[in-house]
């Protein structure tokens, strides 16, 4: 590119605060916005969880009315899924994908800005329902009819916010696909890309395929509620079970939307701190693709108890069990990467190992639920709650926190306190087990989910679980302190290659990464790929 053009396109120029943070098209700034927003929402959704655990601390009604409890559980789920896990992964993708493939920015920067700015308005709409007549929707995050149709009119606001969130996710995924397929530096073949980019490319296709289906499902709910249609009204010939089919056609791939990028992150961190190339890079890529494909064939395992034909139950049972195979490949390959490696346990590695262990616990309980006869026992109990929290907190959230500890020095140019990072990890990993492990006992004993009061037989483990919940919630304040201290107050400068064995293009840039990077396409050195050489 000519020097004049370069100055116009990429030259440093001063931006006002408003221009930088409200009108930015820079992938790093938008990544920061996504991460900051999801961090804020983590504490909003987390505060709802604290209230839920406070109410469940002992039997009887203590703090709130049952309907408000239902509002909290519904909103907690929606906020954590759409406001925390998904946006934080998109934030990481915004920050890292252009730097990892040697692109100057995302392919469609203005679309990127739009994708982010839909989010705050969507959540303002969603949270405003708490203050409306009739209260917030309280039918659970799955919004099953006919229950959801029996609530107040605030459901319209929730549905509109879900439409906005869907548009935001789809636009973000379009951008990621367009970027990865078109903006890679010359020589950065698809099978040389870092695992994080691969995981997000495949995740983006999942988002494209299923978020519009959720939009379709909630649109039909909207029409049933306000425009006199009867899609899901059994009294008028509609079929409520059809909603469950359409919803879970979205819902199960959504589970993988929330976990595949985590696989990518862990596949980045483990080789670095094992000082070995990633074991079975191509197998890891194909395992992710295989999991993504299978995720479209298993949705009815969420509905084994609705009265499916036996053949259907058997099909969905086996298809679900099949997913354990590529997932097992991934767990095996992470362990094989560590095997005989020169391991060191810096903060990101602790979170990655924590992910592997906790995600495996959640994964195993998932295989248990795949068995139809067993699922008839587990369905609707706290065992389900324990399962998906192990996968989403011990899995997705741990990987996101690990990613922040891994890349924060690259973003901020400063090192954080390793002591506080490790304390954060150990306190989190113990408290998260105190929080969720007893919920498995409660589920086995028959405690239903989504109830504000319970039999005294469940009192002890609920109290233990609540103590774990408060402990886990308080521990996350350490994370706030570490991040704020690192970004604004740390005196310890980070080098460009922050971690000794970290390869890949992002580590060739100075720390902090300059506002505009790779304005000239970098040369790709095959011996310096993020996952090691291509011999595996």
């Amino acid at each position, binding site marked *: *590119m000519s020097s004049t053009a370069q100055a116009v396109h990429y030259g440093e120029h001063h931006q006002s605060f408003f221009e930088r943070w409200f009108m930015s098209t820079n992938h790093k700034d938008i990544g920061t916005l996504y991460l900051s927003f999801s961090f804020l929402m983590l504490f909003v959704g987390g505060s709802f969880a604290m209230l839920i655990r406070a109410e469940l601390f002992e039997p009887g009604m203590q703090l709130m009315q049952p309907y408000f409890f239902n509002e909290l559980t519904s909103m907690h789920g929606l906020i954590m899924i759409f406001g925390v896990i998904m946006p934080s992964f998109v934030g990481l993708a915004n920050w890292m994908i252009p730097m990892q493939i040697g692109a100057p920015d995302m392919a469609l920067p203005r679309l990127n800005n739009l994708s982010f700015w839909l989010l705050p308005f969507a959540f303002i709409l969603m949270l405003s329902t708490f203050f409306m007549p009739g209260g917030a929707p309280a039918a659970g995050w799955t919004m099953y009819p006919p229950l959801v149709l029996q609530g107040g009119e605030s459901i319209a606001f929730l549905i509109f916010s879900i439409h906005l969130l869907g548009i935001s996710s789809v636009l973000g995924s*379009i951008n990621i696909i367009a970027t990865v397929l*078109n903006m890679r530096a010359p020589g950065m073949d698809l099978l040389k890309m870092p695992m994080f980019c691969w995981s997000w490319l495949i995740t983006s296709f999942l988002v494209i395929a299923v978020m519009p289906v959720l939009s379709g499902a909630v649109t039909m709910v909207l029409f049933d509620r306000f425009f006199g249609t*009867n899609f899901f009204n059994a009294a008028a010939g*509609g079929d409520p079970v059809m909603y469950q089919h359409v919803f879970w056609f979205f819902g199960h791939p959504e589970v993988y939307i929330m976990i595949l990028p985590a696989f990518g992150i862990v596949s980045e961190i483990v080789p670095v701190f094992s000082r070995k190339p990633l074991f079975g890079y191509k197998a890891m890529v194909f395992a992710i693709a295989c999991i993504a494909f299978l995720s479209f064939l298993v949705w009815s395992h969420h509905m084994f108890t609705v009265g499916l034909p036996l053949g259907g139950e058997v099909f969905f049972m086996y298809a679900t069990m099949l997913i354990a195979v590529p997932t097992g490949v991934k767990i095996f390959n992470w362990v094989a990467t560590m095997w005989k490696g020169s391991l060191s346990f810096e903060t990101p590695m602790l979170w990655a190992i924590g992910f592997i262990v906790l995600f495996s616990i959640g994964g195993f309980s998932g295989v248990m639920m795949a068995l139809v006869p067993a699922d008839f026992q587990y369905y609707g109990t706290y065992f389900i709650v324990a399962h998906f929290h192990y996968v989403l907190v011990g899995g997705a959230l741990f990987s996101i926190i690990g990613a922040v500890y891994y890349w924060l020095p690259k973003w901020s140019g400063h090192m954080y306190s390793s002591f506080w990072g490790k304390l954060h990890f150990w306190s989190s990993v113990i408290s998260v087990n105190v929080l969720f492990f007893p919920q498995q006992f409660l589920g086995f004993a028959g405690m239903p989910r989504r109830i504000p009061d319970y039999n005294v037989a469940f009192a002890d483990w609920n109290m233990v679980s609540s103590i774990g919940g408060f402990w886990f919630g308080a521990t996350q304040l350490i994370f706030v302190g570490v991040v704020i201290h690192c970004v604004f107050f740390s005196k310890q400068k980070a080098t460009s290659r922050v971690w000794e064995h970290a390869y890949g293009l992002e580590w060739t840039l100075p720390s902090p990464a300059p506002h505009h990077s790779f304005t000239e396409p970098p040369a790709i050195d095959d011996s310096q790929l993020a996952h090691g050489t291509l011999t595996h």
Partner: protein
Amino acid sequence: MTLRKDDGQPKPPVDEAMRESGRRKAAARRTAWIVAAIAIAFFIAALVQGHFTGIPNWVPPR
């Protein structure tokens, strides 16, 4: 848009990197439209699924 007549003067050399960047942008836009079309197709498919399941059972409201 104004169309300019070719004045026969030699044109300034076009920077190859600039052209490459333009090609990538155009390819990215094409990709984006294709993927957007897929997303819209899935949205319509969800509604059609609802209609086909709903219509045979539909009872007009009184």
